[in-house]
């Protein structure tokens, strides 16, 4: 597995420069945390890395084909259950009982099979975490993946990710310094352009 390297990435929306010559290395198999003020371009950077957005200039290398993500919004199929939402990304590769076991680990045992539109924000947040982990991509892109969780649940969720995504490249965007300590790895501070 290769490091993910960005070289002089620039991106503007209209007149607004969001990224300017952003150069960084995300070590393979390691955690890299990203912090930065709201609107500084963190999500934009992830979108470029995931291939959802094109940079105006600069280069990205080392992103594998098989990737997993927790988006800043949940992006769940609202009329389907937690289990079905995860089955959608894993296919039959992962057994239903295995999916249920993972959801239970994060305390979602009571709402495995009801439509996710009825779940609270914090519950949906855990569903998308399990979705990303069980999809088992070589890289995990986490965009404020632990937001909306109380301290205990958050710690549990962080331990869950570290345990089940061991040895994977993780890029973790957050506004919480303590979270970066729990996640381990490196910290990049992004500046406003």
């Amino acid at each position, binding site marked *: 597995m290769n490091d993910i390297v960005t070289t002089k990435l620039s991106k503007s929306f209209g007149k607004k420069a969001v990224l300017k010559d952003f150069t960084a290395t995300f070590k393979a198999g390691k955690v890299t945390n990203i912090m930065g003020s709201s609107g500084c371009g963190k999500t934009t950077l992830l979108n470029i890395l995931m291939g959802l957005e094109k940079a105006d200039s600069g280069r990205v290398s080392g992103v594998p084909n098989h990737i997993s993500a927790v988006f800043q*919004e949940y992006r769940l199929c609202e009329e*389907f259950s937690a289990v079905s939402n995860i089955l*959608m990304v894993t296919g039959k590769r992962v057994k239903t009982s295995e999916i249920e076991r993972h959801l239970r680990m994060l305390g979602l045992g009571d709402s495995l099979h009801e439509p996710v539109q009825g779940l609270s924000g914090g519950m949906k947040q855990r569903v998308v975490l399990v979705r990303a982990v069980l999809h088992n991509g070589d890289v995990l892109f986490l965009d404020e993946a632990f937001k909306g969780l109380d301290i205990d649940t958050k710690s549990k969720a962080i331990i869950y990710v570290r345990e089940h995504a061991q040895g994977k490249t993780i890029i973790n965007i957050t506004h919480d310094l303590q979270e970066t300590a729990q996640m381990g790895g490196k910290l990049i501070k992004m500046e406003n352009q």
Partner: protein
Amino acid sequence: MLLGQKLLLVSPIEVLKRLTTIWMEAGFWDTVAFSFTRIVLGFFLALILGILLAFISGRLRVVEVLLWPFVIVIKSVPVASFIIISLIWLSAKELSTFISFLMVFPIVYTNVLQGFKNVDKKLIEAVKVFGVSWRRSLLYVYIPQIKPFLISACSVSLGMSWKAGIAAEVIGIPQGSIGEMLYDAKVYLNTSDLFAWTVIIVLISVLFEKMFLLLLKKYFEGLVKV
């Protein structure tokens, strides 16, 4: 005017009386089957082609642009013009299928296309990032979100296909059709027959609509587990 008002307005009792006998007449069920199969065939052809082309148009803008003038023309030309023009090329027998198709196609096509464009872009991105197969994206993302558009298109167009299909038969007068019965009733000034057949058309149309929508919803429910 010796014939009096009885001709113009029959009493509901008389229509009811006629209804109790009409279905026992020789050839009644053949007549109903004749019109039913042809109109419903037109409906299904339009349904299939409408959905198919809407999906293609949703993915390829060129196709949408190319189809646009045809859809506009079909939508705005009066049915009567279509019926008369079609009679030049088509036999009276196939006419109701074609006219029912013309009524249904633009409604299904435009609704499903709108549904397609309405699908949550963020979810489409997520599905792309996770590399979800084409089949599963269809089942989990596209179909659930397009479903209400398709159902409303069907409920609007089912009734129209019947009205237009029967109108085509009245003008084309294919032998053994409901349209022919209506035409004869008019020629022989047989108002109770006219009303009785009208009631029958409404009944079949409503029954078919309810049945079809029920089956459609059941089908969608059975497609994938919640």
